[in-house]
């Protein structure tokens, strides 16, 4: 990626490699060093196995069962593909959740990236106090998955919330945004877009990497501001855009907290905020159909993997890596 830095000349690197090689003695010592490595790794390794890998594999197994949380494992019944069948053929609310999630991601992710890039361009200048603005714009995303923020949002976009008071100054009659099934999801999108700080910081870092010679050369060739953006900034920034796109797409699909808080954990009003993960949570923990919920989780994992793979395959056509040969 464009973020790679040149090797640091101050580091006494080349020598130390040889020293380490010399110190490698007979096989036994090397063996115990390897073991020590694993021992020191073990906190992470145990965490990975215990908290991620084993539960994940277990959930794969559970997705083929009728597990309902309360029944002990020993009495769980194998149901084959029944859960998957139900999901694809007999569960309208599942497909509703898929639609809600796709709508959310397709609209919120591009707009969030556009906002992040736009603000990064504005803040990529040598103003006085620009650092303060960078901090301020980054602040909302620090509060990322925060419940408090979602609660504030609900109160701002109520019928008698701050946003409607603002509108009424202009003589516009507002709506009960968060309690209106036609607008609740849009309100969540605005919340997601507003938290553009993380991609913005990455864009800023990317912009700093674009060599000024390129702009100078373009100016000499008579390129205007737009042409410079179009033909210098965008291509040079494309790896960063790609990185942000992949990350934010995955994030967008996983949106949960805000929808949960806004709807009191129901996905309401009338399922308008029933995001995939929220539907999964309700199925598993409220309806106690954990086997079915596990199946949903695995389909979700595969779907995100496929979408990410598609993004990667399109990368070939528009992501430009300036470091070395074309790919």
């Amino acid at each position: 990626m464009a973020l790679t830095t040149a090797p640091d000349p101050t580091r006494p690197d080349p020598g130390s490699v040889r020293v380490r090689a010399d110190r490698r003695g007979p096989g036994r010592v090397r063996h115990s060093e390897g073991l020590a490595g694993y021992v020191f790794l073990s906190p992470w390794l145990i965490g990975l196995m215990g908290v991620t890998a084993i539960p994940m594999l277990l959930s794969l197994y559970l997705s083929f069962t009728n597990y309902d949380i309360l029944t002990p494992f020993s009495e769980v019944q194998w149901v084959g593909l029944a859960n998957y069948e139900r999901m694809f053929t007999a569960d309208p609310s599942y497909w509703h959740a898929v639609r809600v999630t796709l709508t959310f991601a397709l609209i919120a992710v591009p707009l969030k990236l556009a906002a992040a890039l736009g603000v990064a361009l504005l803040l990529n200048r040598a103003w006085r106090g620009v650092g303060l603005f960078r901090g301020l714009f980054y602040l909302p995303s620090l509060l990322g998955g925060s419940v408090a923020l979602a609660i504030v949002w609900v109160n701002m976009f109520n019928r008698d919330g701050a946003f409607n008071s603002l509108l009424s100054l202009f003589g516009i009659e507002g709506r009960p945004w968060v309690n209106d099934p036609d607008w609740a999801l849009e309100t969540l999108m605005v919340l997601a877009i507003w938290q553009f700080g993380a991609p913005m910081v990455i864009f800023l870092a990317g912009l700093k990497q674009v060599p000024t010679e390129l702009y100078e050369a373009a100016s000499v060739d008579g390129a205007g501001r737009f042409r410079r953006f179009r033909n210098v900034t965008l291509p040079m920034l494309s790896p960063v855009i790609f990185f942000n796109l992949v990350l934010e797409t995955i994030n967008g699909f996983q949106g949960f907290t805000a929808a949960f808080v806004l709807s009191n954990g129901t996905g309401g009003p009338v399922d308008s905020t029933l995001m995939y993960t929220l539907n999964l949570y309700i199925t598993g923990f409220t309806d106690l159909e954990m086997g079915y919920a596990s199946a949903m989780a695995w389909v979700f994992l595969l779907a995100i993997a496929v979408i990410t793979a598609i993004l990667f395959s399109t990368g070939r056509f528009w992501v430009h890596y300036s470091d070395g040969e074309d790919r």
Partner: protein
Amino acid sequence: MHPATPPTTDTPVGRHHRTPLPRRRLLRGLLAATVAAPLMFGAAACGGDDDSAADPNAPVKLSIFWWGGDARAKLTEDALALYTRKHPNVTFEKTWQANQGYFDKLATLTAGGNPPDLFQIDDNYLAEYAGRNTTLDLTSYQKSGKLDTSKFPESLWQYGVVDGKLAGLASGENTQGLVYNKTLLTKHGLPEPTTGMTWEQHIAWAEQVTAKTKVPGTQDPSADYKAFWVWLRQQGKDLYQGKDLGFTAEDVTKWFELWKGARDRKATPTADVIHEGNSSDITKQLVVTGKSATSWVWANQMPDLKKNTKDELGVIAYPGDPSAQWARASMYWSVFRGSKNKDVAVDVINFLNNDQEAVKLLGTDRGLPSNQDLRRVVSDDTTDPAMKQSIAVEAELTQKFGKSPQVPIKGHSKVRSELIKAAENAQYGRATPAEAAAQFIEACKSAIA
């Protein structure tokens, strides 16, 4: 500061810190620690295996879990402390939290093989837990008299029976209560609603309230399963019939149409405000947020509602014939079937329901005391006016109560959320009452399958 005493004996040892331990010894130590730690914890976890019945004075630590607010926590902790005073060998590991998320946590604890010995549960989940054999059948304790229900109304303890097993013991009694804003009505010279008004009269009354006060007269309860339930019983139907639904799509359509009519007449708030009130959160009930003159709640929630508003509140039965209402177990105490301390847990339930001091401490927080003798004592003693009101309305209704329905079946929590969904679809005008009803029936069928 006084000068530090020069370190003497420590220093030489300190010097040696940098000397590397022989690596193999270090590794072996680490390995041993890694292996030993889970063994030690494991052993500790197995420590409570011995049966508490063997020695009645052996120390017992009983875990107990309930939902509720600070006030309930205080009362419950006092009552449990009283038990410990009388049985010094028994101590409690208390956990409590708000209602939202309570059942998620209870399910997770159960799945993890670590459920509390004793837990609070309500009729929305009792059948789910009992049907999966998570709860202990209390019948034998009841027969032997260790669990005394002789002072309970018959129908009240029976409302804890699932598939012939006593799965939970009512920790209090409540019934549906329509709470209204007295202050608002008095200010505008409007009549207070009364028990026994028909649904039609109630809606007409609400329409009049809206017209005079500009506050919508009544919350639209079409998404509220307990209101729907009472209405069904007045039509000779029920929510459940055995393992099946006790109503048809036509019934639901009629119910939704009744309230569509009310909305058209402006007797209710707009759909988005109704949606706010459909939350189970006490603080969001429209009668306390001032967005409607009534809310459809449980009678024992009066004191809690009162804490959230300055206005005077009144409480009556739901409209229609009050004999459709019944003595409902507001919540139960259940014992985990795999508990190591079953006998003690049952004794604690018995204590919380039948010991005069304990019941007086607990008051009507979990509903009217199940023990009728003690109920009288508590109602004579109470000074909280809101509590007095809820006791009065229940006492009045007790004369009129009908037969208890069966405990809601497995899938009930899904049925409840589907009713909200369908009703809101009609309220927002996205579906006709008939369409919403068909949608609801369809969803119910898969929920209870």
